[in-house]
């Protein structure tokens, strides 16, 4: 690629200037100042209607300056990296405080990354476009040839490389290079006027070797086609309260929505989360162990340093049914006087960091998956999910795109489009059985909070929930 040579120059600001800027940012009496520098390159390839329709390349370059004064934050950003402009941004952010300089920034020391959680053999941004096009074509052709009923296929490949540097007035300086790729396939199947869509994909913080060793593009194409075809045979979902079995993997969305968001420290600190006064309390049965782990090698949600320069830690959220941990960023940790966990993330340089999830999962239990399904006389098996949403009061929903009816302990009729709704504290208490089969969902997920999108994954084993409202049509 054209830009590799001068990336460093693009975001290289001499150390002494960084030091100067941090001091300007503190000039009105702020307690803490920070500069977040970002350079991101993005490539995409899009194939549909049997042709390679278009490619795109995008460059994003800029910096954000944050000043914290007590509970208040001032923020400014720019993509004009002239020193004069950056100084102006620093002054704007500084104005959140209203006083005189208290103390200057400490002398900057560079801290190297201790662990690289995503060593990559063939970084996608350095590979030729032709190689990536080949991956797209393979997935496309497999999906299209899978069955005559497949009428439309769309495949996209996206790769991204993000260079970030964080420096702050405590003298800290750290950099991270984060690759991120994904290959996704959407299929539409048609049969006697009926039309259904199927989706699949994969990727992560990996190189192109992933599509040889871990997940072949052909498999992605097949998986999407298979889902669309299955849905053609599916009936409308039942409506009402039923016992639910959640399939392993995709159902991790439930953990993300029902537990993860409500343990983000900002919601706890502001007492808007239903969990705010329940730390240490029992909220589920002994089998329930939930973690958020930004250090799982090559996962989409992983990082070597969070976007505030904190070393990320695997963080237990619920252990043996007890609420034990929170996802912290700097501001909340400081105000709550709690240790940092390395969960301060931001979408890009235009955004302030906030507490976010990375890779969130419910750990495996002791039941064989078949045993769990067998225990249900009449119920609903939720297989694949489109997504979910939660509000601080604990009410959450998630949308099932495909599932099955369970009748006499067996999966029977395929079912489509249903919404599950519940309250988190209630659902945690209704988790009856946890399978031994922990699986993570597709490496394609994105989580949105306060308008900021970050890559995440989530996972869980087969789970039985004693009762939950299923919103269907019948």
């Amino acid at each position: 690629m054209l830009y590799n040579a001068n990336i460093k120059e693009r975001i290289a600001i001499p150390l002494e200037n960084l030091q100067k800027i941090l001091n300007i940012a503190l000039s009105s009496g702020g307690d803490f100042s920070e500069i977040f520098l970002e350079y991101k390159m993005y490539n995409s390839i899009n194939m549909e209607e049997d042709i390679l329709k278009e490619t795109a390349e995008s460059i994003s370059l800029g910096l954000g300056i944050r000043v914290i004064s007590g509970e208040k934050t001032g923020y400014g950003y720019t993509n004009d990296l002239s020193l004069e402009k950056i100084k102006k941004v620093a002054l704007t952010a500084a104005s959140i405080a209203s006083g005189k300089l208290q103390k200057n920034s400490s002398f900057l020391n560079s801290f190297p990354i201790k662990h690289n959680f995503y060593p990559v053999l063939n970084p996608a941004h350095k590979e030729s476009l032709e190689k990536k096009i080949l991956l797209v074509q393979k997935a496309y052709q497999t999906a299209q040839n899978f069955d005559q009923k497949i009428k439309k296929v769309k495949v996209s490949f996206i790769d991204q490389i993000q260079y970030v540097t964080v420096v702050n007035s405590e003298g800290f300086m750290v950099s991270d290079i984060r690759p991120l790729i994904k290959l996704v396939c959407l299929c539409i199947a048609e049969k006697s006027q009926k039309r259904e869509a199927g989706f699949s994909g994969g990727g992560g913080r990996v190189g192109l070797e992933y599509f040889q060793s871990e997940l072949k593009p052909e498999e992605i194409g097949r998986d999407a086609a298979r889902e669309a075809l299955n849905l053609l045979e599916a009936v409308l979902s039942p409506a009402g309260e039923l016992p639910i079995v959640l399939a392993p993997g995709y159902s991790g969305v439930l953990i993300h929505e029902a537990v993860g968001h409500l343990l983000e420290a900002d919601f706890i600190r502001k007492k808007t989360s239903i969990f705010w006064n329940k730390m240490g309390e029992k909220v589920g049965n002994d089998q329930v162990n939930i973690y958020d782990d930004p250090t799982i090698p090559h996962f989409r949600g992983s990082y070597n340093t969070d976007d505030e320069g904190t070393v990320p830690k695997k963080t237990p959220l619920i252990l043996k049914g007890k609420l034990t941990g929170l996802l912290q960023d700097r501001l909340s940790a400081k105000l709550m006087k709690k240790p940092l966990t390395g969960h301060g993330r931001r979408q890009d340089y235009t955004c302030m960091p906030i507490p976010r999830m990375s890779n969130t999962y419910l750990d495996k239990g002791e039941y064989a998956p078949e045993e769990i399904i067998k225990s249900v006389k009449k119920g609903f098996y939720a297989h694949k999910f489109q997504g979910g949403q939660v509000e601080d009061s604990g009410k959450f929903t998630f949308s099932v795109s495909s599932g099955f009816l369970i009748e006499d302990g067996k999966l029977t009729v395929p079912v489509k489009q249903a919404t599950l709704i519940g309250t988190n504290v209630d659902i945690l208490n209704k988790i009856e059985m946890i399978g031994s089969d922990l699986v993570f969902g597709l490496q394609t997920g994105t989580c949105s909070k306060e308008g900021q999108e970050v890559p995440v994954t989530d996972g869980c084993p087969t789970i039985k929930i004693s009762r939950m409202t299923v919103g269907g049509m019948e």
Partner: protein
Amino acid sequence: MTEKRESGELIGLAESLVSYGRVNGSDEVEVSIIDDSEFSVDVRLGKIESLVEAGSRYLGLRIIKGKKTAYASSSDLSEDTLQNLVKNAIKRADLANPDEFAGLPPFSDNKFDFTSLKLFDSEIRKLNSKTKISLAIETEKIALKDKRITNSHGSSFETREIKSILANSNGFIQEYEETFYSLSLGLQAGDTDYKVEDFWSSSKRHLKELEPPEEIAKKAVARTVRQLNPRKIKTQKAPVIFEPMMTSWLLGLLFACVSGVSIYQKASFLVDKLGEKIGNKRITVYDDGLIPGKLGTRPFDSEGVPIQKIPVVEKGTLKNYLCNTYAARKLKLKSTGNAYGTGVGPNNFYLQAGKMSPEEIISSLDKGLILTRTIGHGLNPVTGDISRGAFGLWIEKGEIAYPVSEITIAGNLQNILNHIEMVGNDLEFRSSVSGPTIKIQELTIAGE
């Protein structure tokens, strides 16, 4: 940081890149530049939480060579980066397949009357930070006086000033400026384990049209506390009244299904339905980007196609798909001026108001649900199937009996459009997709 790069400078940059692309072998070139300044303040429980003030610029590029397309974009506007991007895009275009439908819209010698569209409010440059902060503080303060409110998500005031420039190799070169203001408030009521929450906000292009703090506080409080002590209801089929925000949500789904991109991709249940009845006579939907001062108003779309008032559904008959140039060519139609980035988006997409007041609609209902909020995803445009988590108010004998929560509603858009029984007179353009109160004959409500 409200200083703007000289407008001539950005126009010059756009023009020079268009010719740079042509000189380097591209048949067609399109350059768009956005110059954006934002201010936002979040306050919570009477104190400032954060203050953001910043400016940024962004350039988008489309290259078409031999009917092959490549896109690029950058926030780094230095000359060497941009020239490299153009050259690289031309190389990448070579790797794509030719697509006979690719290409820029033909040049139209349209005269644009920017002033009459009322996109820009010069008040934005006079408004100081202190006033902006106090608007947010005042809004929350009024709401917190109500003892039923137990916590606050905070109040925010935001302003944006955007300059858009578009140039292409067919000779199009135009720019316009616009402003946005918004004031919002989110609240919680109830005890720790039985909290309810909601919000209210107002977004306008002109400061004087923004709802005042009292109004926003009042609505946010009312919307929040009316949900206190909810009940769960039995699973059943019942009539459902959609409040205007819910109608807007439903119309958003309709937009996704009449978008020319979904149509040519066969990802909509409305494929091949042009000219056919897709709903009953009460349904008339327009996309009109020329209504002065509304949020979706603009002189031309992101390809430079002039905006018009487009009938989408007239008395139940589907009249037009909403297209950018590419989707229009695929469907042998004309662009409707709905290009938005590289895809398709609404201008002011709305359901025409009816005659009944919302009160009349509610009192007409013997038993049923007023839908006030939904959460989650759950539309399948391919089939029109809808399923969402829902909150609402249960009606008995024309009056609100109690709030309900933890239910879901499910239906099919095709079916819903044929069973809208009443359309309210309370249409307001609160976003680029809007509709009045409507009553739907029956939906499936899942509860206990």
